[in-house]
């Protein structure tokens, strides 16, 4: 069980995350569908990041790529990778199991 899940059960309040926490979500209907979706469900970090790094070149600058992943580390690592690589982290959406991370290619 993750710390977040344990905290949710025990009523621990996490008032803020660090400065690298994902930005506030944008309503889904405002965003166009991603140009490419990568399925990294069941894969441990750093595999989802490697998949993203290998294939972000397949979308055009300004287009988005979605990474589906369920390793909890991906919630920190996807935004951190974007910050390191100067790519735009758009948002994270919860899936029934895991998350969908949306990244926009910025160069």
């Amino acid at each position, binding site marked *: 069980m993750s710390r977040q899940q344990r905290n949710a059960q*025990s009523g*621990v309040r996490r008032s*803020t995350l660090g400065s690298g926490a994902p930005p506030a979500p944008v309503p889904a209907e405002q965003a166009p569908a991603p140009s490419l979706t990568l399925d990294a469900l069941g894969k441990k970090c*750093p595999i989802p990041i490697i998949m993203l790094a290998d294939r972000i070149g397949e979308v055009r600058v300004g287009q988005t790529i979605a990474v589906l992943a369920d390793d909890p580390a991906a919630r920190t*690592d996807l935004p951190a990778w974007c910050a390191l690589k100067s790519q735009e982290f758009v948002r994270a959406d919860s899936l029934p199991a895991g998350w969908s991370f949306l990244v926009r290619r910025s160069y």
Partner: protein
Amino acid sequence: MAYFDAASAEPLHPSGRDALLSALADGWADPARLHREGRRAQLLLEQARESVAADLGCRPDELSFASSGTQAVHLAVLGAVQARQSAARGPGHLVASAVEHSSVLNAADWLARRTGTAVTITGVDSLGRADAAEFAAAARRERTLLACLQSANHEVGTLQPVEEAAAACAAQGVPLLVDLAASAGRMPAPAGWSLLTASARKWGGPAGVGLLAVRKGTRWREPLPADDREQRRVPGFPNVPAVLAAAASLSVMSRERAAIDTALRALVARIRAVVPVTVPDSVVHGDPEARLAHIVTFSCLYVDGETLVTELDRAGYSVSSGSACVADTRQPSHVLEAMGALTHGNVRVSLPRDASAQSVDEFLRVLPPIVARVRDTVRAASAPAS
């Protein structure tokens, strides 16, 4: 070859080893007994207490020896909170930064589950420094019974704004627990604490000695069935020989602190400067200036930390990693997560007091090809079968 995991355990200091061996001969008896052997053990124990108290800047009667740093933290948190809880006024509120040692967060979680204590975990910046304003605001919440802030972070080395937190807590009458584990023996204890915890292993003392200091006037109630040992704060017969060894090591480390700090600070600065240049796609964490001298953590993209640690071990370098992307049951480092930093591929290098420039240079030479090799392996394993 070199051991670079002093933040887990600093090798036993020779003066600690000497003290341990002589105390095994002289300090084995029960210090609570009135016979000569007991009195001798008692005398040695109290000498150790005075020595450690002087190094920490507290009174001997404020200081108790516990069986580990973790036990000291658990007793500090539970005892301070439970002393101020009441049936009439409810289970109260506790504050801790998001980058505290897991023993602090686990104790907070335990209180939340068992007694309904509300817990606020406050944030840190990208260097791992606690947000002092947010921490102070949380401490001002009604019925705050305890606030917890480490002196420095054990993973990335960043120093915490303890004096600001202490001023805010003092203004509210909220006791402040300062977990000194990462910095004890390396820097003076910051002012303003109500409770202090530490672990002897981190300064070259033996395993199995924790420190719990409770400032005079701070309310604290024993959370476990008590006996008469250790000011009724820690139950059980104290390990007198290990306590003496811990005191002897702390005394020498405190005396040599400035020289050790200067030497290790320069070596860590070299690691901080070289790794981002020689290892592509790597990032060094933590504050480059306001930090502990001996700890540095960096992350390498596209590798997992466990494999990196294993490969460095094979090359003769003992380091640790907070990332655990292989084992299903383990979580990424909560410290790096709170910082919003890359949680995979991280390596913590923590230099022991006698680390040589030569060993650090050799480590910096072997690191880039090892990272490259692990990257190739991970990439090959992740490639689609087609």
